[in-house]
């Protein structure tokens, strides 16, 4: 499956999701390619730190591509890997658009904040446009960097349900230190110590929701450890 984690707005905590998802898939024995299409190159840096980690966690391949090259390369690369995860920058660029033309699923993270949710309509419009080229594209939204308490998450989820053509996952990734801390060590929250069980459960729930039809076919070691 080709998953693109994308948004036209920055500051939604998007960089943490692609590599965490890729790491979980790699840990589950899948052959994973991450395409870093974000000019910041966070995923590539993560992969480099990960490759130098000791003991070495399950590895995934990472390449940097931008623009139309993503679409061109995916026709060849997509067949060589079990799973492909594309990290695009938080702007409407040729790279983001190219990712939308080849992805099976686009995951769009939203913080439970009004200004973030206002970006729902334009990203939905972009997804609708992409579907003219990629009819099978499934768009999902998720609450990211959510609050640990209060009503904003519920209100935001209700707002996500109003975004046309984008299916809200009934899950949330809460803002937890485990995410940036594990990221800086090239590890997913599922691999990082000290273990944050809530963060691990949230991440694995997202992976399961996205890959449920594929999860049943192979052992979910990461979930067992949780």
């Amino acid at each position, binding site marked *: 499956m080709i998953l693109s984690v994308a948004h036209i707005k920055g500051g939604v905590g998007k960089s943490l999701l692609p590599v965490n998802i890729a790491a979980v898939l790699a840990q589950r024995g899948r052959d994973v390619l991450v395409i870093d299409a974000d*000019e910041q190159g966070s995923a590539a840096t993560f992969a480099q730190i990960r490759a130098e980690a000791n003991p070495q966690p399950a590895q995934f391949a990472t390449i940097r591509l931008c623009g*139309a090259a993503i679409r061109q390369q995916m026709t060849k690369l997509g067949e060589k890997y079990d799973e492909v995860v594309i990290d695009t920058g938080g702007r409407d660029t*040729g790279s983001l*658009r190219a990712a939308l033309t080849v992805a099976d699923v686009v995951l769009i993270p939203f913080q439970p904040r009004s200004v973030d949710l206002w970006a729902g309509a334009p990203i939905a419009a972009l997804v609708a446009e992409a579907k003219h*080229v990629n009819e099978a594209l499934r768009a999902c939204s998720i609450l990211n960097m959510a609050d640990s308490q209060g009503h904003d998450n519920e209100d935001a989820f209700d707002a996500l349900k109003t975004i046309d053509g984008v299916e809200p996952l009934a899950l949330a990734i809460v803002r937890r230190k485990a995410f940036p801390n594990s990221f800086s060590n090239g590890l997913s929250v599922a691999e990082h110590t000290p273990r944050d069980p809530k963060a691990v459960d949230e991440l694995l729930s997202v992976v399961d929701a996205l890959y449920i039809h594929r999860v049943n076919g192979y052992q979910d070691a990461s979930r067992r450890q949780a």
Partner: protein
Amino acid sequence: MAIKMPHAVKPDTDRKADAFIRAKPTLTDPDAGKTVVNMRFDVALLKRIDEAARKQGISRTAWLHVAASKALE
């Protein structure tokens, strides 16, 4: 004819995709203006560099870029 131009005629979907992608600029290639160099490094020094980079959460390359820039200032 022996000579074939592979992209002379694109399928309709590819043409639509091209138009969709090119409607927005692609950011500059992040590796533009950079070159790959092979260097011999003392193993212990490299270990210290990797440790320092890890603590800052950046790559070995990024750490060396910062260190070299500072030394040149």
